[in-house]
């Protein structure tokens, strides 16, 4: 894969985050999909960092 190969393809986009970006892509008929994203560890920052530490201390 190179960036120049991407230039020859049609964009097919996965949107993760702000749903408005997805809505706008849809409005332009760009093949796209929106991910119902949920934060790692349910968004609990303390827990996320704890889990992160658990991983890195391996």
């Amino acid at each position, binding site marked *: 894969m190179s960036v120049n190969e991407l230039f020859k393809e049609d964009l097919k986009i996965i949107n993760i985050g702000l749903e408005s970006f997805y809505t706008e892509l849809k409005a332009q008929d760009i093949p796209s999909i929106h991910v119902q994203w949920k934060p*790692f*560890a*349910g968004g*609990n920052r303390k*827990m996320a960092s*704890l*889990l992160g530490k*658990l*991983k890195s201390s*391996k």
Partner: protein
Amino acid sequence: MTVREKIYNGLFIASDLRQFLLARPILELRVHSVFETSVNLLTQEEELVTFASSGRDIMPMGMVAAVPGVSVWGLRAGDTLSSDGRLVFNLPRGAGSIWLKDAHVRPVSLTQPLQVKCSPGIMALDLIKTKLLLANADGISPLIAWMPEGDTPPSTRKGNVYCTFIYRDLELFLKVLVSDKPEHALDLTERLIGFGPGLTPSCDDFLAGILLSLFYDSPWGNDANNGLRENLERVAVIARDRTTLVSYHMLRHAASGRANEAYLELLRAIVEDDLDALDSLIERVLAYGSSSGADFLFGLYCARKISADNIRTSRSDSE
């Protein structure tokens, strides 16, 4: 204008389903139940086949098609689908056909033996426990706070109403599982099968985790214990009349080492202490059903925890 028949292509097909279909030139499938992302079908041999929409993980005797939801097929309970032995199914009422010829074949059992490391997945088990406690799911997984060790004094109410009801039976089951005759625990499954909320009741998901782990666990699963497989299969027999059809088939598969792809990967990641893979797998599995994934994870956790403790004990004995 010519009306062209709509063709739905399979993305993935379970290896067991593929084998099953190819062995039967003529096959009729009856639609048993229809959900948003899957259709369950029954063969005349009462084998359960699942057709799912994309986004679902591949399951034993299942396939995943490139459709956003299964409603596009217009199937209703009682419909029949015929296949011609060439992996093509014609949908009723001219809704088109489903082609499984080009679907990627995916395994639904582990093809390689598990590599148990010297520290048998301790970090992995901690990660699961933390995440399950945090998820506080609806089924019986909140009991992970007390199990399998069970050294806290029992209080009258633990977690939700399901936890409270099943606590003692589950405790007994696990106690026997850690004893020197673990296979006897399987006799106690009658007191668990079919219990809990959901289409696959919580305890069944839990047991699927236990069965799958037992099947692949080397201390029990090797040839030294030939009786084990028989015992596991007995659980499936018990399940036949005591739980839902979908749940029975899940337990039957688990007792033979077959399960959803993510469940198998999860087992592998725990045993190999592959924390990076585990992290995203847990997230993926927790999204299963309302609590199915969490209950399965809880079962897997208990089985692996017991196994890990056994390994440590036997090591210190031999020193």
